[in-house]
C-alpha cells in the first residue's frame, strides 16, 4: 500500500471508531443522569468533533469517508447506569484501538495526533471505570 493509501485507511479506521463511539454514547446517555450524564454528553461532543475532523482530512486526501452504520452491535447490553458506564469505558478503549494504525503512518503530525487521541481516550476510559492496562489498543499478545 502506498503512503497515501495507508494514511487514508488509517483515517478511515479512526473514523469508524469515532462513529461507533458517538452511537454508543447515545445509548449510554439514555441510562445516565446528573453528573454522569453531563460527562457522557461532553465526551460525546469530543467524539463528534473528532469524527467531523476526520471526515475533512479524508476528503482532503481525495477519498470518500465511509459513512456510519445505521446501528452498531454494542459490546454489552445496557439497562442500568452501571452498564452505561461500562459501555462508555468500552467505547473509549475502542477508540484507542481505532487510532493505532494512524500512529504508524509516515506523517509525523498524524502520528502525534493519533498518540494524543489515544491518550485522551484512555484517560476517559479510566474515568468511566476501565481497569488499568499496560498496552491499551494493542492486541492481547502484549
Amino acid at each position, binding site marked *: 500500500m502506498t503512503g497515501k493509501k495507508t494514511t487514508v485507511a488509517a483515517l478511515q479506521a479512526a473514523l469508524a471508531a469515532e462513529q461507533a463511539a458517538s452511537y454508543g454514547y447515545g445509548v449510554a446517555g439514555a441510562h445516565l443522569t446528573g453528573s454522569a450524564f453531563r460527562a457522557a454528553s461532553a465526551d460525546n461532543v469530543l467524539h463528534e468533533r473528532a469524527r467531523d475532523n476526520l471526515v475533512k482530512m479524508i476528503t482532503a486526501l481525495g477519498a470518500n469517508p465511509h459513512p456510519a452504520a445505521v446501528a452498531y452491535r454494542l459490546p454489552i447490553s445496557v439497562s442500568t447506569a452501571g452498564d452505561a458506564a461500562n459501555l462508555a469505558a468500552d467505547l473509549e478503549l475502542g477508540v484507542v484501538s481505532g487510532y493505532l494504525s494512524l500512529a504508524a503512518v509516515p506523517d509525523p503530525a498524524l502520528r*502525534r495526533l493519533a*498518540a494524543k487521541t489515544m*491518550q485522551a481516550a484512555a484517560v476517559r*476510559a*479510566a474515568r468511566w471505570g476501565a481497569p*488499568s492496562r499496560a498496552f491499551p*489498543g494493542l492486541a492481547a499478545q502484549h
Partner: protein
Amino acid sequence: MLAAAAAGSLGLTGCLAGCKGIKALGPVPGVSAEVVTLEHTISAEEQLVAIYQAAVSQLGDTSITSGNGSDAQVVAAIHAEHVEHLRQLRARLILPPRYAKAKPTPSHAATPQLPSDAKAVIATLAGYERSAAQRLTGDLSAVPAALAQLMASISASEAAHVVYLRRAGAA
C-alpha cells in the same frame, strides 16, 4: 577459529600488496537515530520503574486506604505495568546498548527523590507519568511504524495512570 586464521592470512597478503590495513574499511557505521531514540525511551522507562520501585517501598508502611484499594496497591499495580513496558521496549532493541552513539539525558535525577508525604508521592508520580506520555508523543516520528504503535500505546497507558493515581491520592 578457522575463519579467524584465514582472515588473518588474507589480511597479511593484502598488506604486502599495498593496502592501507584496517583503515581501508572506513569508519565503524554509526547507530541510526531510530536506535538512539529507542535507547532513550528504554532509559526513561528504566527510570520510571526505579521511581515506582522506590515509591512502592516508601508507601508500604504509610499508605492511605481508599475505596479503590490503598495507594500502595495502586502504585504497585502501575509499577508492574511499567515493568511490562520496559520488557516490550527492550525486546525491540537488536543492537547492544553500548553501540549507541548518544547516551540518554534523563529528564529527572538518576536517583529518584520522592517527598516523604504519601499524597505528595502520588502527585509526584502523576507528574512523571504526564512527562513520560508527552515525551513518547514527541519521539514517535523518529521510529519505525511498529515501534511507533507500541510507544503510542504506552503513552496512552501512562496518561491513564494519572487518573488511577489521582483516585488513590484523593482518598
